Each structure stands twice: as C-alpha cells, then as structure tokens.
C-alpha cells in the first residue's frame, strides 16, 4: 500500500500535493528528477558505448563519437540545413493544426460531417501516404510547397481524429448548460467544445507533430533535398556517427517541440483538471 500511496501522492492523484508543498518536505535524492535521469540515461548511454565497442563501427558507432558529431553539426552546416527543413515542417504542421482542429471539432459534433468525411479521414489515415507522393508532386511540384503539403498530410489526420474523439467525450451537461444560456452554434465551438476537448486536441497535436517530423524526413528523402539528402548521402557513405548525430538532432528537435506543446497544455488548462498536472514534468 505504501508504494502505491507514494505513486498517488506524486502522480496519479493530486490529493496530497498541497500538504507536501506546505510542509516543504525535501525530496530524497532518489526522488529528484535530475538524479533519476542521470542514472537511467547514463546507463543507456553506457550500454550503447559498450555495444559500440563490441560491435565495431560498421554496425554501431560509439555514442561518444555520435556526440562529437553532434557538436560538429554546429559548424559543418548540418544544423543550418536541418533548420531550413524544420521551418517548412512547422509551416505544414501549423497549417494542419489550423485546418485539422476545426474539422475535428465539426466531425465530433455533427453526425453529418462524420458521415461524409469520416470514411475518407480514416482511409487516408491508414494509407501509406508515400503512395500519394507522386500525385502531390504533380499538383504542387517538388519545391517548398511539396514538403509543406506532405508534412500537412502526415500530421492532419491525427489532429482530426483526436479532436473528434475529444468532442465526443464531452460531458453532455455542458452542452445543456450552453443551450440553456442560448449560446449560438458558432460560439459553442469556442466556448465549450474547444476548451472541453483541449486535452484531446493537444494529444492530437502531439501525435501530429511526431508525424510532421516523419513527413519532413520522408518528403526530403523522396526528392532528396536538405536534411533528407544529407541523410541519404551519409548513409550511402556509411558515415554512421554523422548519420546518427543528425538523426538524433531531428529527434531532439521533435522532442523539444513536443515539450513546448506540453507546456502550452499546462498554460491553457490552469483550471486544475488532472491532466494539467500530469502530462510531463511537474514542478516540485
């Protein structure tokens, strides 16, 4: 029971949060975030390094070399390349959010929209979008907009599907309240549906972001430019440390953006609903 209670206090419920803070109880070392991370991540790094030594550079570069290459990326232009790729990624992702959230809200709310759009959203969601790339190239060419569109398509269905699910989960009482106070249909979206579905929307944005990054890489691998081209070249030359370094940078930027979304969620849901305190790290 005591183990559980600890978990409860710190994580699953916030029941005990208040008293903890007030008593100013100092966290033990093993409860400190940095310590836990140092330990677990340090272990992972060590295992990688040892594996790298055992397997040899042909299979797995040692992580120390990867780290060195990550620093080298500051000077050899890799990060500049990645930055320009990310710019397009964010444009596509932003568009997906701007378009996807309203569609999701409407689909979650209106059966008619669901009837008409649902099947296509699901179909495109399960389709390998890679198959559509040639078609997209015809429509928008291979430049800037191609990559934006690919990222857009990779991200939007997650946003739509999650948003719609969030809307369907809204407590009907809230709709009743809004109806009782004569909230017009349009305002309903802004005042009730969006805030109530917000945790789902943000979950969708996070999922979508992950896919946006993937879309970016795949689009660039397809028309071999920027970061994608760099990855292809590095892979071909089997420069694994640089390859891993660049891949790690991509992952890191994805994680960073994800973290930003999480902090948004905390900012946007200050009403103390449970989610706010849970997703991501909590201040102690």
């Amino acid at each position: 029971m005591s183990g559980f209670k600890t978990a409860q206090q710190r994580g699953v419920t916030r029941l005990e949060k208040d008293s903890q803070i007030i008593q100013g109880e100092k966290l033990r070392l093993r409860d400190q975030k940095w310590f836990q991370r140092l330990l677990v991540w340090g272990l992972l790094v060590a295992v990688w390094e040892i594996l790298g030594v055992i397997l040899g550079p042909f299979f797995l570069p040692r992580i120390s070399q990867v780290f060195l290459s990550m620093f080298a990326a500051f000077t050899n232009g890799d990060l500049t390349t990645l930055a320009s790729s990310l710019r397009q990624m964010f444009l596509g992702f932003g568009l997906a959010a701007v378009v996807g959230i309203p569609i999701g809200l409407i689909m979650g709310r209106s059966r008619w929209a669901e009837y008409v759009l649902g099947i296509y959203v699901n179909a495109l969601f399960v389709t390998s979008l890679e198959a559509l790339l040639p078609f997209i190239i015809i429509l928008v060419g291979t430049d800037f907009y191609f990559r934006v569109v690919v990222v857009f398509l990779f991200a939007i269905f997650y946003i739509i599907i999650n948003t719609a699910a969030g809307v369907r989960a809204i407590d009907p009482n809230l709709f009743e309240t809004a109806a009782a106070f004569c909230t017009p249909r349009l305002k309903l979206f802004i005042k009730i549906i969006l805030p109530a579905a917000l945790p789902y929307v943000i979950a969708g944005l996070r999922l979508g972001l992950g896919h946006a990054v993937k879309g970016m890489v795949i689009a660039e691998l397809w028309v071999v430019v920027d970061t994608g081209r760099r990855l292809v070249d590095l892979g071909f030359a089997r420069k694994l440390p640089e390859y891993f370094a660049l891949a790690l940078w991509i992952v890191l930027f994805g994680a960073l953006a994800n973290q930003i979304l999480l902090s948004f969620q905390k900012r946007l849901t200050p009403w103390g609903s449970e989610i706010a305190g849970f997703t991501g790290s909590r201040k102690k």
Partner: protein
Amino acid sequence: MDPVTRKDTWISQSRKNRIAKWGLRVASFLVFLAVWQWYGAKPEMFAVAPPSQVFPAFYEAMLSGELPKAAAGTLYTMAVGYLLAVVVGIVVGFGIAVSVWARNTIEPIVNAAYSAPMALLIPILGVYIGLEFQGRLFLVMVWAVFVIIVNTAAGVRETPPSLMEMAQSFGLNPWSIYRKVIFPSALPYILVGLRLGAGRALRGAVTAEILMSTTNLGKFLIDAGSTFNMPKLLAGIMLVILLGLVIIQGAEYLEQRILSWRRV
C-alpha cells in the same frame, strides 16, 4: 437539433439516419470515383491509373490468389506485432502515468521516439534483429506501440481523482484500483490508442515488407512499382486501404460496444 440533448428523439430517427448516412457516403464515393477516372485518364497522369484500369487489375489479382495470399501474410505479421504492441504499450503507458521514475526517465524517451522517423532505424535494425519475420515484427511493434503508450498514459492521468479517492476510501488495494477504477476510466483513451495503433500496425507491416525484407503485400507493391505497373500498384494500395478501413471500422464498432455505458 442538438444531438446530445435531443438524444431520445435521435433514437426514433435512427432508421432515417442510417439511410441518409449511407446515401451520403455512397454519393460522395461516386463523386470521388468520377473525379479519379477523369483525372487518371489524362495521359500525363502516368502515376495515377484510372479506376477503369485499377478495378480490373484488382479483380484479377484477387482471383489469381496473388493478392489474398500476400494480404494473409501481411495480416499475420501485423496481428502478431500488434498484439505485442498492445501488451507493451498498455504496460508502459500505465507505468509512465503511475511511476515518477518512469515518467521522469522513460517518458521523454517515448516522446522523442514517437517523433523519430522509425524508418531511420531500418539500416541498423536488420543487423541485430534479423530482417525476416522477427525484424518485421519488431518494426510493426515500434510503429504501433508509441501511440498506444501515449494514449494509455493520458487516459490513466485523466482518471478523476474523486473516483480514486472513493475507491481508496472503500479500501481497495492498488491492484483493484487499477483494475476497477483507473482501467475502466482510462478505457476510452486506451481504445482510441488501440484503434490508432491498429491502423499504424498495418502501415508498419507494409512498410517493413517494402523497406526490409520484401515479401507479401510489400513485394506485391514493389514488383508493381518497379515495373511501372500502375494499375496493379494502385490495386495493391487499394487493398491496403481497404484492410485498414475494415480494421479501423471494426475497432470503432468494438469501441462503441465496449463503451456502451457512455451512450445511455
């Protein structure tokens, strides 16, 4: 009228609704087919074969047994990998939501891995896990597992504290609280994760069959693609979409059945 507050009237209209629903779906699909035919028939649309060529190709490949056999192989990989992903995903998802250690250390990795293009792993994966069945299985699993983890964790965290408080008050042990309160309460989220994961597992299976060792549907697509047999390629893609739709719609149906208490 407002479907939620008027739900009692919706029930009586449900028959009319069904007709309208399918009417709309069929109509919009016909429009889509027409546009596709018009577009695909243009000579410069080399990569987009029109339905008038795709459907016969599809029919032929189905009849010859080539496509069904390939699909069965792919589905088998997908199903096994997906089951693994479900088990791992739910366990890790719970772990992340419940344990501070896991949250502080594993969750950032999960989040990072989620946005990492898994395809980047393929060149190195094969060496460790093998490129045959296990390799594809692994790829299917990583393809599907993160969405399940993320959703499970979110669902667990969304459990109303008041209900857990109640359960604690009734002296439930931790295991029972998980089983009887947190799990059912997180179930709507978990099911969303499972549904999204099922779609991804299929895509992962096909991708693995294309990018790792080429077999089954992946081989069908690659062969058609590399010989520029566009009708056959699209027929294969069509089957993948169809399978995905069946899986997703099935999952949605199950979801509604399982969560029937929400609709009362």
